[in-house]
């Protein structure tokens, strides 16, 4: 059973549109989708993480429909937004405790996990590392990356190894960076019809 199933999923509203997108992401698989526009890439990432509901077509996250089981979807999928967060290294503990509170996780356990991840992401700017660590605090099965920075692709993929990863990109070069070896890529980029 795929963790993420999109069938002709499209969004229209608020002066924006995206899709239709058709794809399956299985557990442990990695998929990068190159989409022409940055806004469209963001909307597809939001749909894949259950935050935005599709206007047409179908999105299933671990067989949950975001239109009626949005909470279940958000327990399975975590979004790492494109925008860097404006936090400094000194705010790390506060940030992790906040994310743990949102996911109703014991703060000490979340902090220990986050500190391990921070060590693995050493060298990555906190503005990019914190949202990724925050997304992993909830132990999601599927991680959705909205236009991740290609420069950090090896570090991001190393931390996400073993999880299902779906990333959207504004260009095919960035998408290729997220499918590159040595981390045994098993997905492929697609362009919406």
């Amino acid at each position: 059973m795929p963790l993420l199933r999109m069938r002709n999923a499209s969004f229209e509203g608020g002066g924006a549109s995206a899709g239709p997108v058709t794809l399956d992401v299985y557990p442990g698989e990695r998929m990068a989708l190159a989409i022409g526009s940055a806004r469209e890439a963001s909307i597809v990432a939001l749909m894949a993480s259950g935050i935005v509901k599709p206007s047409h077509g179908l999105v299933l996250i671990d067989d949950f429909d975001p239109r009626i089981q949005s909470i279940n979807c958000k327990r399975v999928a975590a979004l790492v937004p494109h925008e860097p967060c404006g936090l400094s290294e000194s705010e790390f503990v506060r940030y992790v405790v906040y994310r743990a509170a949102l996911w109703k996780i014991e703060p000490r356990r979340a902090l220990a996990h986050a500190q391990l991840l921070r060590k693995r992401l050493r060298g990555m700017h906190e503005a990019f590392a914190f949202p990724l660590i925050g997304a992993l605090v909830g132990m999601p099965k599927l991680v959705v990356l909205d236009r991740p920075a290609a420069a950090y692709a090896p570090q991001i993929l190393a931390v996400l190894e073993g999880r299902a990863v779906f990333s959207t990109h504004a260009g095919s070069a960035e998408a290729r960076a997220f499918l590159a070896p040595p981390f045994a890529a098993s997905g492929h980029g697609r362009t919406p019809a």
Partner: protein
Amino acid sequence: MTLRALAGVGIARLYVQRRVLLYACAAAFVVGILQPEGAIGPVVFCSLLGIAMALSQSPGRHPHLDRCEQGAPLFGRELARAKGLVPYLGASLAALCYASAQTVRGSHDAPFDLVIALAAVAASTSTALCASIRRGWPRILYILLAFTAGTMTYALAVTAHALLAGFAFAALASFLALRQYGEALARYDPVEEL
């Protein structure tokens, strides 16, 4: 919703707005020194502060917090309560500063004025939250409605001398507004912020 999640959202949002909160409290103290008599001062001033703080919870003002909360496994009503707590606490702190200034000026009605101000603030901030995720005319209408809710609480409690009716009105208005806000948040698709 667990108390931890409620506190998490509240603390994070109050932390990013800590300067605004400080200025609001200082302004309330100054206005309290200048206008120490009567409940109309704290009701109007603190309701306006509450409305402003509620509008500052609009999507896009704190994009990182918005994304974290939108992606969290929380129901719309849970998020509504947590986000509603922020402007209410902010405006209540300002009302407390106002009451302190009234006490400094020797007003004996300060505790009574504070209680009415807290009720009016609850009604106006909860209603103003509904404006925070709307655009255009609906937003303006909700802001007017929020101000009317605060004024109505004052009118019932002070002008009509029906204190309990004023509190009942404020409680009912807050309850309905928070429910409405929660339902709107559950349906909300955050694409306009992109």
